[in-house]
């Protein structure tokens, strides 16, 4: 009987160990992100970095409205990197997304940089200064 019991225990442990290590997820970002399922289907099927950028922008309007964009979108009236993702709000207060960043390279790069720097504890001013230095060699800013 003890043999059977010890075996049962061994297998339970094995399965438990396997399940535990197999299910451990990647360390997720600590930054606030908007849940993906609240976003349009096109964003849900977009590349992961684009999803992350949309989710971060939607959840961090205060920061993102202080971050410039260098993709040239000043000419279509964008006044910050935030505008590349969010066009505004509808009558019910729900976000209206902008498709611009779905096909934009620099917009998303800037957002990912902002996320990386914020995680390192940088202030919005420091992040803006960094973005200005890195991206001004590619084009004009959309912020004064």
């Amino acid at each position, binding site marked *: 009987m003890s043999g059977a019991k010890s075996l049962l225990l061994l297998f339970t442990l094995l399965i438990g160990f396997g399940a535990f290590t197999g299910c451990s997820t990647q360390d997720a970002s600590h930054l606030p992100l908007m849940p993906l399922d609240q976003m349009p289907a096109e964003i849900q099927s977009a590349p992961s*970095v684009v999803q992350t950028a949309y989710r971060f922008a939607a959840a961090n309007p205060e920061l993102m409205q202080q971050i410039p964009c260098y993709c*040239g979108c000043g*000419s279509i009236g964008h006044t910050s990197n935030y505008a590349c993702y969010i066009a505004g709000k509808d009558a019910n207060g729900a976000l209206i997304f902008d*498709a611009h*960043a779905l*096909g934009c*390279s620099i917009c998303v790069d800037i957002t990912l940089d902002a996320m990386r720097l914020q995680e390192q504890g940088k202030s919005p001013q420091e992040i803006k200064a960094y973005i200005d230095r890195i991206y001004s060699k590619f084009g004009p800013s959309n912020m004064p």
Partner: protein
Amino acid sequence: MRKTWIHFLIAVWLAGVVGVPILLRKNTPMLHARLPENGGWSPAVIQAEVNRPLRLRLTSDDVMHGFAIGQQSMPEVDVLPGQVTEVVLNFEKPGTYTFYCTRWCGPNHWRMRGTIEVRAGGSLPDPEPAPPPLYVSLGLDLDAPHAIPFPPATRPSAAKGAPLAKTFHLSLSPEEYRAHSPYQIFEQLASLPLSPAERWDVVAYLWQSNTSPQTLSEGARLYARNCAACHGESGAGDGVFAQAFTSPVSPSFSSEGMQQVPTAFTDLSSMLGASPALLQGKILRGGMGTGMPAWGPLLTPEQTWALVDYLYTFPFEFQGVPK
């Protein structure tokens, strides 16, 4: 006694086959490449210290990818599914570097980029200020239409233009070349006693005189690797991914955004109205919301100019460059 021994052996054997793979896989850091839709690079940010070798074990979790670092001379390596490619990198200057996928892995291939933060003594220096690109100093609007009114009927020929240019002692300095569109030079030549077709041939010659076989072949290589998948191998804007960038349909979107199809470089009207500075700007910055990537962080200035040189082989017939 014998029984305990057997129990022990069984336990060791079974725990071993379960535990060893788990421990080995968990304790071997690897840089995973996945399709951009499935996560891209993981991790996407890598830490390194200046002048200390950074050893990376690259593996792909789906299809063939590639690995290179933007603006660095390190050769590209392939990242193969289920296999491991080891690279040892050494950074002499602190700063942030971009690594990217070098093998087309779908229309979103260019989204596969990551960052290497190279620190000196644990701290990351502020990026050095850089001058704005040429198109900004020239005051060009990258997104303004630049098609010309009366393009030539056939591709202007540098071979035909060469003797004419010699006759009239015409030349074009590199600075003038970069700052002007072919059409602007064509207009400047209006006073010469030449037919429009002859003037275009002269422009073709002047354009080729600002390129070299080396820049053209380097440009051709870069074009095939990075551009042809969308813009087409013949430059006609008909690459295999040309139709991949469509407008979203969800009502929660405001604008149409990326509605564009890739530019056809064989279109004389738009190409002859584009200056090298403009093309360079487009390559550096990418298309605003059109799905055209920004190549600024990846290509060196020399590479970008080589690519620009090469792009003119589509509207122009250069000597010794078959098309």
